[in-house]
Structures are given as C-alpha cells and as structure tokens.
C-alpha cells in the first residue's frame, strides 16, 4: 500500500552485476518504500533471480557498478548474514536441501539469531515448538516437516511453503519472493499468498518476482516492473501485469532498447 509517511527501504541505482565475467544486470534502478508491494516480471533469463541473489549477497555474483542503499546503508558493506539480520529476506526460487540438519533446529537457530540481534528473548526448543507450530498453521503446513532435514525430500510446493514459514518467523523489513508461486497448485497458492498478505504491513515491503500474473490476483502489487536484458525497462500499476498476460513480453521496452555501444 502506497502511503504518505512511508520511508525508503531500498534504493537501487544503476546496479550492474556479473557472473564469471559475464554481465547480467546492466543498470537496474528501483526504489521501494515501506508499505509497498512491487512485482518484478520478465521472461526467463531476464535477470530477475540474479537481481534477487545480488541483494541477498550471493558470492557467485560480482557487483560491477551502481549502488544499493538499504534503509540508507550501503547494502554491499554487509555480509549476507548481516543483511539478513538487518531485515533482508530472500525466498529462493530453488530452495536447496540440507540433509542431516533438522528443519526445526535450523528454524530455531535462525529465529534465535535474529531475536538476539534485535535485543529480544530467544526461545528454548519447547517454546519454539509452540511458536513455530502456530506459524505453520497459518500456512497449513504439517508439523512433521519440522522433524525432517531442511527441505529434504520436500516437494517443490512444500519447499516454497517452508520459505514463507521462514519469512513469517524472521519478519523481514524487505522480503524478496523469487517465483514463490511456481510449483504451487491453486489451493496452495491461495494459502501461501494469504500468509504473505498477513505478513505485509505499513513498515515492511515486498518484492514479488514472477513471470505469471496469477500470483498478483492474490497479492495486489502497487507497482509492476518489467525486467528485460538485466534492466527494468517498464514500470506501471497492477494493470500492466494484465497487459503482459494478454500481450506477452515482446512489446515491452523495445522502444527503449539501448544501442549496442552503450
């Protein structure tokens, strides 16, 4: 929700990033304020996940230009764990499995790390068990997912729910949800998006990365951006997503395509 006394949470200017020397992000500009929901759409390979992982601090990506301010601080001064503690959260497009690390142990460690960072009380295993079960109810997750290894043997949809469960536990200032809708059937999509909506408030912000407008029926964006070739080439309101649904992506940003020498 766009509102008057919102604060700037994220300010991305001219962000460039490369992987193995190949530039993928070629000057991304984006401003996100508290209370807002932004959707970033675009075809496969346009750089959406790269953008998300650069924000989270994945070491495979080298930032080659531009800047990112998170609540006024240079995001690139922070290690990935410091970003998480400052309130950046990425729900991964492909959450990895960590066999042998129990999900409940992992969730509690993450939760308690952030609690102590925020000067709040940590929870012991029993207290945490109650707390996490309540959050799981919100996402209609079976509690036996706590006893399994992190994402171990989870279906695609279960992994996505586990990501949003982490969001619910960590209460980030900025949540970037990378294709959280993929792998979810229609019921699961309704449950997960309902959970996300409950977590959204006037002090935090959400970036939804998706290439279908389906999810946007459930989480209403304030802005829709189209990414193409590593840049945001068009920004509009939620009606842009419907346009994209009917017309595809080919027409977007063509008129703005930069000359090869740029």
């Amino acid at each position, binding site marked *: 929700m766009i509102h008057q006394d919102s604060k700037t949470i994220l300010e991305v200017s001219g962000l460039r990033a490369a992987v193995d020397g190949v530039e993928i992000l070629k000057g991304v500009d984006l401003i996100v304020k508290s209370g807002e929901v932004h959707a970033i759409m675009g075809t496969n390979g346009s750089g959406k996940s790269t953008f998300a992982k650069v924000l*989270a601090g994945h*070491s495979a990506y080298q930032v080659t230009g531009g800047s990112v301010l998170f609540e006024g601080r240079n995001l690139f001064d922070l290690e990935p764990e410091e970003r*998480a503690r400052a309130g950046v959260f990425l729900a991964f497009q492909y959450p990895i499995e960590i066999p*042998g*690390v129990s999900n409940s142990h992992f969730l509690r460690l*993450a939760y308690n790390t952030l609690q102590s960072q925020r000067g709040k009380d940590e929870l012991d295993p029993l207290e945490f068990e109650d707390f996490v079960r309540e959050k799981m109810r919100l996402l209609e997750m079976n509690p036996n997912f706590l006893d399994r290894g992190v994402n171990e043997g989870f279906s695609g949809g279960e992994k996505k729910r586990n990501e949003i469960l982490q969001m619910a536990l*960590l209460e980030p200032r900025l949540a970037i949800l990378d294709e959280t809708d993929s792998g979810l059937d229609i019921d699961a999509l309704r449950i997960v998006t309902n959970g996300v909506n409950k977590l959204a408030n006037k002090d935090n912000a959400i970036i939804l990365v998706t290439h279908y407008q389906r999810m946007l029926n459930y989480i209403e964006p304030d802005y829709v951006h189209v990414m193409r070739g590593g840049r945001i080439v068009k920004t509009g309101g939620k009606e842009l997503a419907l346009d994209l649904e009917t017309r595809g992506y080919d027409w977007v940003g063509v008129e703005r395509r930069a000359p090869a020498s740029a």
Partner: protein
Amino acid sequence: MSMSLVNSNSYLESLLQGQPRLQPSPLAWFNQLRANAVDHAGRLKLPTTRDEEWRFTDLSPLVRQSFQPARTAAALQSADVEHFSVAEAAIRLVFVDGKYMPELSTPAERLGNRGLIVTNLASAITANAEAIEPHLGQYARFEDNLFAALNTAFLHDGALVIVPRDAAIDTPVHVLLIATQPEAASHPRCLFIAEAGSEVTILEDYVSLNEAAYITNAVTEIAVGDNARISHIRVQRDGIEAFHIGNCAVSLAHASRYRSVSVALGARISRYDLNTVLDAEGAECVIDGLALIHDHQLADTHSSIDHAKPNCTSRQLHKCIADDSAHAVFNGKVMVRPDAQNTDSAQSSRNLLLNAKARIDTKPQLEIFANDVKCTHGATVGQLDSEELFYLKSRGLSGVAARNLLTYAFGAEIIDRIPIASLKYRLEQTVLEQTKKN
C-alpha cells in the same frame, strides 16, 4: 617374558620394561596361546610407513615415548566416572588402566539374567573355559599383526560377555575403559559371544581422565552365533596425547547379524582395524564409522569385510571429518571369496575436509572372486557446500554457525545410528562442541 621378545626391537623393549610377570594359567591352551603370541611378537617389527598397511600412519612418535605398565590403579570413586555413565545401560564393567574395578561395575549376575555372563575375563576364564576356548584368540590373528600379538602375549583381562542361547538382553552392556595414568600401557582384551538366537547391544567405550601420553592396545573378539544379533558401539574418546591401537575381529555364523557403529574422536594417533568374516550363509553386517579429528590428530581406520560364504550382505558407511592439520585415513577392503555367490555388498566412504592443511586418504578396495554378486563402492572427499552455507547465512546464521551446523549434520548421520539415546545425545553435543570454532 621370553628373551627373544625383548631382544627383537628396542621399542618393544621399552614397552615391556617392568611388565609384571603374568601368572601361568591352569589352562594349558591359554598358556599355549600366550606363548605363541610371545613368539610372534618377538619376530614382528614395529610397522613403518613402508608397510602398505601403515602407509599413512607414522608410528615414530610412539617410539619416542616411553611407557610402563599401569601401576596399581588409582582409587577412583563412582563420582569420578559418573559423567561417563550411560543411563540405559544397567550392566556395566569398568576397567581403569586395564584393571577391572568391581566396585565401579555392575556385572550381569546382579541382574539375575539366567546364564548371562558379563564380567571380567580374568575372573571367569577358568569356570567358563569350555565356552571361551573355541573363540579366544581364534579371530584376532596375530601372525602378522604386532599389536594383536602383544595384546595376546599380555592377555590377562578385559570384558567377557556370553549371551546364552535365545536370550535377548534388553539393556545395553557398557564396557567402560578409563585411562588415568600418564605413560601407562594397557592391553585390554574383550570377548563377546552371542550364542545361537541371542541378541545383545554392547558399548565399548574408551575414555580418559588424563591428557598426557599413554597407550591403549586393545583387542576385541566377537562371535555371533547362528541367528544371533550383536549391536556393537565403539567409542574412542581417548586423551589428546594418547596412542590408541584397536583390533576387532568378528565372526558371523549362519543368518546372524552384526551391526557396528564406531566413533573416533580422541587420541593423537589412533588406529582401528575391524575385520569381519561373514563365515556362513545368510549372515549380514552393517558397519558404520565416524572419525572426527582436529589439531594434529591422526585417525586411521582399516576395515575388512570378508564374504567367505554365499548369500551374505554387507553395508558400510564410513565418514571422516578432518579440521586444522589433522589426517584421517580410511582403508576399506571388501573381499568376495570364490564360492560366495549372491553376495550383496555396498560400501561408501564420505569425507569432509574443513581446512586446507587437513588431509584425508581414503581407499575402498573391492576384491571379487565370485561372479554372481552385487557390489558397489564409492568414495568422496569434499568441502562444505557453498550453496548450503549461503542458504544458512541468508537466514542470519554467521559463517561460523553455518559451518558448524553443516559439519555437525555430516557427522550426525553416523551418530544417529547409535541405538542408545543418551549416548547419541551426548556424542552429538560433543560433535557440536568439537566443530564449534568461534
């Protein structure tokens, strides 16, 4: 001891100095066994890295150290050993520097399990000679194994477990071997016999109240009778300056099952040889191991699984985690004899290097002489997965916490297989502590 033994090697000489003369036994076969071992020990030399079986394990620090037989054992109070106790184990045998401590032990007769013998070998050997003779010294061959020969030459005491036919012992048997004296050499000898159809869980647990150098040279023999089952947990948490040499030899009879989890955490240099012979049809063994070492520790595990008869199954998962400048060695031999058709064997060696200076040498060896078999083996040596580390850090865990958690998980896969909950918990805490670096 005979002169030939003393003259053979200056190292052995030092090991033997002051060794109390062992009383001859009234059992002729027992005296003969010792005498044979003395004979072999006298001929065998201390292995060097030129010996294929000891390629990576340099024993020269052992030679630079002098050892004496343990003096009269320190009078330990139960309070001193209480933190080693395992709640589930109603039967416990405690040895301090190799000496049996009846006042710290709870042998089987106090439980009233009829026919079950759990006591120290020295006190029971004469009365149970008939049951013991077919097994003692029959599996742990010492013809080309100096340490087994020395142990047999000094054969005097250790744990004796005889589970009678068709008995299922519902409490684990805890054999607790505590080292207390610096520079002491001990040669504990254990014998575990599960008669036909019986079932038992035994924990062989080497601990220390002593951070100085000492040597434990242990031999354990295990006979699993027809349709019997033994679950054997071996934990080596010796002191950080200790030398630990362990030989374990297992013989499996028809349709029997041997399940083993061994965990090596301690000692400056440790070597564990586990030789399992699937000696009758339908036998099955599952052998898992973990070595978790750091600093300058060396942990060498050699295992051999001998499919001597058809229709047997073996499973093995061995893991090593080496940090700092530690060096872990695994050599796992699986042998399938010519008539061992329909063998089903799978072996896996998984290794984690936590430091560029650490080293892991792993060598699975498969020797197949039968044609209708299903055998797989594999080995990996790797580091922590960077995607897993990133995932954890993206949730706020520090790099150190992420690394600790993943290391712990790697080791916990083995520890989880220990069927004694309190021990499992304790070891998991130890692994957490040991992997924790701040």
